[in-house]
Structure formats: C-alpha cells, structure tokens
C-alpha cells in the first residue's frame, strides 16, 4: 500500500506577518518557512510509522509550489519519506492544489492520501475534502488516530464535543489532527540520506481559477489592556456588562 502525504510550505507560527505590492501579496522576505505543522507532525509522522510497522510500502511527499520550497521538501525526506513530487506551480487556491494531488494520486495508484487538517497560513481545511470529492473517495476528517490492517483503515475523528470511531476500506483520504503521532526531529543520518532522495518535478495540469485573493489586511490589534485591581472585581463585572457588553 502506497501513501501520499501532501505537504504545504508555510511561514513559521511565530512569523511577523506583512504584505507587499499594495497589500495583495504576502511578504516572504526574511520569513522562515516550514512544513505545515499538521502535515508534518501528524500526517507525515503517522505515515512513516505505518511504513515502519510494515503496513505501507512507500511514503511519497507531494507538494504544490515553486523551487523555493525545496528546503521544506528536503526536511520531509530527512524525516524519512522515501521520495517526493513537486508540482511546479504557485498554489493558487485549495481547488488548484486538490486537483494536482488528485490527478497524481490517481495516475500513480496511491491508496491512502494524508493531509493535515488545515494549513496555518490560509486555514481553509479544504484540500482533503476536495481531493475526496474529485477522486470520489470517502474522507475521514479531523482524524486523531489512524491505523491500517489489511485493506481497512481504522480511525478516530473529532466530532463536535465527541469522538467518532470509524472504519473504511482503502482507498481513502484522511485529514490529520493532533493526537495521531508525535513530532519527530530529523537525525543526521536522515538529513544525509535526504540529499540523494529523488524529488520529481512535474508541470501542473490545466485548471480553472475559481477564487483569488484580492487584498490582505493585518488584523487590528487590541487596544491596551485595561487592568482591574484584584480587590475590585465588581468593577470588572461592571465593565464586561456596560463597556464590552458581553454579559
């Protein structure tokens, strides 16, 4: 069974965000990019565990992005993925990325497609479900546990205020959330091995532009914190009622 893990190249969580070109583009200069945490810590690490326990034969990384994301792909290879494919295009929107993943997965016989539950830059939680729709496969969304036995996938997923235990035959798409695996740090051997692992570069298939970003704006920060004396909590309650109007 071959696993395709889709990874996104995102600014590190602690990045100070800014925009350029009249607020129409994210300002990449000086920004540290990383593998999207959900893709790395949960989807990729769990895929590697499945391979280590003999339940998967191959773990391939899939990335839609330009050549400048190669360092991010190498990190995934250093963690232990066997090989990688990069679709040589800017990831226009979730639909574009989902189309590229679907057509590659279909053409190359991947039975388990793992994605993180969302990216930390666009927060859409959309690619996994779109891949499911395009490939006509079920999606196990927001999975916190995942196992494979023979031809069946067993998973737990977050439902509002509860956990749903599900079973599904392969092939299937899974969006991965916290709990599925523990973060790993690549070791020196992995980093050396990653240098010679293959990254296949393919050109994107035709796609329609369904959405685009017109402009960005920084979220307004909060005005300075209003401190209330710990002996005067009636005042806090009063402020919450009359000023914030939340109680």
């Amino acid at each position, binding site marked *: 069974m071959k696993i395709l893990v889709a990874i996104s190249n995102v600014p590190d969580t602690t990045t100070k965000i800014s925009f350029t070109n009249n607020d129409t583009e994210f300002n990449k200069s000086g920004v540290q990019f990383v593998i999207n945490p959900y893709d790395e810590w949960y989807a990729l690490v769990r895929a590697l565990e499945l391979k280590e326990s003999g339940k998967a034969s191959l773990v391939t990384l899939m990335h839609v992005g330009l050549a400048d994301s190669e360092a991010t792909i190498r990190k995934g290879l250093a963690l232990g993925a066997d090989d990688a494919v990069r679709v040589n295009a800017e990831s226009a*929107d979730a639909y574009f990325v989902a189309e590229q993943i679907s057509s590659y997965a279909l053409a190359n016989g991947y039975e388990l497609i793992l994605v993180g539950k969302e990216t930390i830059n666009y927060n859409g939680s959309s690619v996994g*479900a779109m891949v*499911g729709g395009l490939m006509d496969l079920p999606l196990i969304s927001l999975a916190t546990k995942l196992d494979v036995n023979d031809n069946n996938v067993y998973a737990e997923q977050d439902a509002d205020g509860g956990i749903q235990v599900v079973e599904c035959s392969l092939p299937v798409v899974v969006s991965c959330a916290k709990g599925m695996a523990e973060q790993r740090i690549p070791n020196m051997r992995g980093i050396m091995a990653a240098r010679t692992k293959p990254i296949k570069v393919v050109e994107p298939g035709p796609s329609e532009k369904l959405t685009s970003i*017109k402009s960005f704006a920084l979220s307004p920060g*909060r005005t300075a914190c209003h401190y209330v004396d710990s002996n005067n909590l009636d005042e806090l309650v009063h402020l919450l009622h009359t000023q914030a109007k939340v109680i």
Partner: protein
Amino acid sequence: MSVLVYTEISKGKIKKSSLEAVNYGAKIAGMIGSDVVAIAFNADDSHLSEIGKAGAKKILSVKENAFKNLDAVALSSAIEQAQKAENAQVILFSFDATGKSVAPRIAARLKAGLVAGATDYPVINGNSFEVKKNVFSGKATAIYSIHSAIKVISLLPNSFPVQFSDNTAIVSDFSVNLDNAKSRLIVKEIKQLSSGETVSLPEAELVVSAGRGLKGPENWGIIEDLAKSLGATTACSRPVADMHWRPHHEHVGQTGVAIRPNLYIAVGISGAIQHLAGVNGSKTIVVINNDKEAPFFKSADYGVVGDAFEIVPKLTSAIEKFKAGTN
C-alpha cells in the same frame, strides 16, 4: 435561482451556527434578488419552524436514516441534488466539522469557488463575490473573490448575529437518490465527551479557560464554578491537556479547537503564540495571571494581576451578585 443553506441538528436542537447561515443567506438573497432555501435532515416541526423564523422561504425536508451520522458522501450527494432542483447559485454552510468535510467536497465536484470561514457578508462585484475571511491563524484577514458561477461559502461560527422574524417557511419533502453515494465509511461508535448540558466549544459564546497556573487537576473546581456562574463552557491550554489534567477536547489553541466566543476568560495561561492563534478571534479577552509580565496581557482587553486561587472565587461571587441584581 436561489441561495441554498445546509442546516444541522445536534443533540436534538438546530445548531445556532445553522441559523446564522440561514440569516446570512436571507441577506444575500436580498442582495441578488432570490430566495433562501434551507435543507434539513430528519428535522421535526419545531426545528423547521425555527429555520423559518431565521428567514428561510422554503425548506427541503429530507427524512432518511442514511443521514443519521451526517456521512459526508451522502450529504454531498443530497446537497448536490438540491442545488440542481433549486438552481442554487450560492450554497452556504457553517465552518464546523460537517462544513469542513462537505462544503469543499461539493465545491470541488461542482467546480464552484469556496471561501471557508467567512467573517463578513459578501460584496457583489459583477459576477464575483468578494468575501472576507481570517488568514495566518487570525493575524490577518483576506478578501477572496469567487469567480465561478456557483459560489460556496462556509461561515465562521459566532461571527454573525441571528435575527428572528415571524416568517413561516414552506416545507417540502425532498427525496434523495443515494444510489451513487454509498459511502464505504462505517461509524462504529460515537463517544460523547462533553456533558449534554453545556454548549460545545466552537459554538460557545462564553468560555472560561485555565492553564498550568492552576497547578493540578484537583484545582479545577474554581474554574467550573466560575463557568457555571456565567453559563460558560470550560476549556484549557495545551500543556494541561497533554498532562491529562483535562480531556483533550477542551484544548483550545492552534493544534486544538479554534474558538471565537464573545468572552474568553483565561486563568493561569501565559499566552504562547500557539494558544493565541486559537483564541484571538474572541470578542473580549480577560486574562488573570500572577505574572504581570505574562505575554497574554498584551492581547487582553481586561487584565487582573494576582493569585488565581483568590481572584477566581471572588470573580465568581461578583458575577453571582451581578446576576442576582439583574434578575
């Protein structure tokens, strides 16, 4: 032409976020001169009447056991059929667990542009809709243009007010053909974690949350009392969930649940950026911490510096006193 809204029943009630979506749909319908049609699965008369009061002109009522577990493949198929039957130009969801698994699926199948997690009403610009949403985990917002003929939007819960009228919707039974929507996904078990009495975190308007500053799970009584005094839902920080002081489903933050209540009270939480990423959409933030240098104060509207074990019970009494006075 119409605006189609997916509505959902959870724990016997229509979700508030579904009513927000119906209301939002009515607003769009007004802008483009069409009607709001809601689709409801296994809804009873009281659910249907509530959807009507939130503004639906018509409700497609589907009664079918196959939708019991809200299977994404079956729901997508049903909503696609409803889209065709009603010639819907806009399809609306809430950006919750179902909205995240069904809206993108339908969008991809219909080649319809999707905005996931909208925080404002669309601006109509020719054939495009311009819709605002949060990006970079709440650090920024972006205006998305949807260019496709059919547009799919899912709404961030708690972002829109719900206004009710005395409107009554026309209810029509809608039968769905599920021949091509047999999902291989089987639900074996549902473990309900939160008690039925409190509102789930993504829907909660008031949240009381605590972190490592509480020193141990045995001290959560004061947090629960404070939450009870407000009618709030309890939450916790990541270390607290990782140490198993509190169940994982209470963890709010980047890797846990992202919330945007009207009021978020954080007790003994330092305010790491990963925690803020999950809560910075809250309308009002109150931080209680004994460390006056705690970074969370920089993102707070109101702060109290001092010992949580003294302040929290006093705040609970102050709220009880306030509630007694207003009733």
